[in-house]
């Protein structure tokens, strides 16, 4: 038997955007299409992974790092057999378990005890294994008093602890873990990391995706830096993390000189965009939740433009507008001379929930009527949980929670009929 636990050969994954994701096909559309040969929105192809080759020796703890959209999660999903590769293959020697989320399949109406069995089975444990580990799971979770309470009554901390406790007792030979440690309080995170360390040290092979470079460095002996669906560097963790950090700074600037998706006459064009901290002193590669930041746009004018207006919008990953701002609406227009220049806009504490977003940029020569340059979807911007309350953000970022966090206050229950006279 080979000493490699995981061998990945020429693995590629293609997604078709626009077909399945934004507006799914309906039978009605399909039938209507038979009569009118009306082409639907053109499908775009995206290679989430392109020709990835990897050999992971048995007993290795490997970290996967890279920006959002670099292909880390796609690679993990293929190795977990959740989605199929388009090309290439992967060989896994030994029993595989994957943990892409803690508490997958937890049912709120069921008790803690019942959810241990349910979640354990979903993660691939047999009933006998769960029974054997039951006491250890309960002890790790520290929720013994509430074992027979439905988990809908749990605090989010208890919920996460129980969920992680089940996952922590998986004993596969190959363990695939996606960003799951970013939940719970600091103390609990430390214990989880300790547990992961034990697993890694016990001769199991672990593939670990995280944005937390700290935990990658502590847990993994080797790391892979992924970029645009390919493996860029594979080596000792320290070197790979250093290379990643060096690269991050550069990618804070989105160069648009060669951007092809623009429309408009182009009397002046937007050539680049940068994200900066609120004081304008620091380039950002991601925006911490709730914190103010600046958008700096670089332009190049071919001729003189007077009364021009800059605008931009934040888009969801799927292209829905979350907000837009345009200078002339706020009473500000610019006179552009031929040549290059830049303009900055500060965004005050945007309550956009953590996730990945895109930018829409435009420059109007006749504000409100016509854009001379319009870039419908540019770059990739990440909003990170930052230093906000970990618990509420964990809930915010997971699932379909909308895009904006709104501070709300709930009142007390009041009994009795109708409204008071």
């Amino acid at each position: 038997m080979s000493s490699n636990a995981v061998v990945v050969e020429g693995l590629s994954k293609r997604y078709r955007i626009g077909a399945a994701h934004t507006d799914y096909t309906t039978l009605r559309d399909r039938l209507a299409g038979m009569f009118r040969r009306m082409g639907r929105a053109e499908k775009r192809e995206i290679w989430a992974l392109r020709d990835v080759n990897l050999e992971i020796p048995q007993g290795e703890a490997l970290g996967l790092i890279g920006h959002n959209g670099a292909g880390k999660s796609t690679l993990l999903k293929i190795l977990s057999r959740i989605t199929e590769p388009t090309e290439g293959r992967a060989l896994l020697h030994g029993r595989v378990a994957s943990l892409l989320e803690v508490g997958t399949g937890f049912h709120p109406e069921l008790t803690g005890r019942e959810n241990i069995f349910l979640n354990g089975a979903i993660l691939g444990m047999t009933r006998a294994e769960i029974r054997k580990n039951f006491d250890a799971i309960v002890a790790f979770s520290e929720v013994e008093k509430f074992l027979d309470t439905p988990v809908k009554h749990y605090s989010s901390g208890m919920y996460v602890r129980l969920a992680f406790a089940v996952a922590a007792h998986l004993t596969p030979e190959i363990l695939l873990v996606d960003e799951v440690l970013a939940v719970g309080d600091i103390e609990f995170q430390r214990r989880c990391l300790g547990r992961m360390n034990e697993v890694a040290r016990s001769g199991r092979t672990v593939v670990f995706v995280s944005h937390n470079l700290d935990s990658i460095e502590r847990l993994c002996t080797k790391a892979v830096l992924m970029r645009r669906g390919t493996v860029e560097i594979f080596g000792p963790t320290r070197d790979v993390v250093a290379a990643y950090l060096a690269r991050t700074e550069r990618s804070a600037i989105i160069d648009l000189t060669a951007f092809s998706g623009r429309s408009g006459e182009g009397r002046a064009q937007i050539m680049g965009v940068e994200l900066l901290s609120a004081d304008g002193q620091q380039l950002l590669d991601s925006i911490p939740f709730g914190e103010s930041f600046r958008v700096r746009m670089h332009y190049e004018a071919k001729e003189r433009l007077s009364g021009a207006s800059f605008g931009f919008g934040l888009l969801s990953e799927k292209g829905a507008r979350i907000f837009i701002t345009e200078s002339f609406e706020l009473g500000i227009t610019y006179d552009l001379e031929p040549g290059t220049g830049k303009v900055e806009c500060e965004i005050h504490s945007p309550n956009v929930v953590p996730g990945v977003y895109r930018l829409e940029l435009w420059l109007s020569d006749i504000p409100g009527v016509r854009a001379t340059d319009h870039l419908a979807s540019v770059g990739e911007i990440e909003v990170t949980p930052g230093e906000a309350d970990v618990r509420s953000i964990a809930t915010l970022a997971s699932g379909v929670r909308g895009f904006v966090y709104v501070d709300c206050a709930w009142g007390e229950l009041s009994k009795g009929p109708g409204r008071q006279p």
Partner: protein
Amino acid sequence: MDSTRTLVIEPTPGWRALDLREVWAYRELLIIFAWRDLKVRYRQTLLGALWVMGQPLVSMLIFTLLFSRVAKLPVGTSVPYPVFVMAGILIWNFASSAVQKAGNSLIGAGYLISKVYFPRLVIPLSSVISDLADFAIAGLLLIPMMLWYGITPGPTVLLTPLLVALAAMLAIGIGLWVAALNVEYRDIRVVIPWVLQIAMYVTPVVYPLSALPERYRWIALANPMTGVVEGFRAALFGTPLPQLLLLISLAAAVFFLLTGAFYFRRMERLFADVL
């Protein structure tokens, strides 16, 4: 631990093998999913049972009123109409709800499909198992009714589990088709209840097959549920089994089960990307 096993992950274009051995390996998950559904449904024991029994009870009362008071059936039934219609409604409801739940099961389990691997066939299969349990509970209604009307079941009553199994096979087969189609064409889920509603009136559920004029009999013959419903009642009440109809049902069940399972496996690779 089976450490010598090597898992090969590669694109599998076109049709795939059913790999029932793997489904078998995940039988505990199958049971636990069904158990979860039942547990949640019967968490409040009384309400759950009331719901499962109340619905056929009300239907039975409505049809009894309709056919005994308002519009008289042209042909008599082998047993008093309330028992007759109750048996029909129970087996029909089982099959129809199994088709609907299996059909929608993947959409409901989208969050699991995108996070964890297990044979996807487990999802619709487990939904049918929990329907089977519902049917068993609602089926208890037949006991007091048969006692009340003094119907003693003959030895053929032992065949009823086989007929329920036939209904389950047919429902799973159609349910698998619906489930896989549902992922690609979301409006299927709007069409299905409507189709099932019509199918109920085309199938001799609330009237006996003999009430159908001769020239419309072919509709009943072409409908695989006819054999299931008529057969279930015949076995329960000890009347002659409709052998030809049962053969047609069995052939249809095998056909839908096989094609449905293969189609499901073929579409399976898209589930995680689409859901």
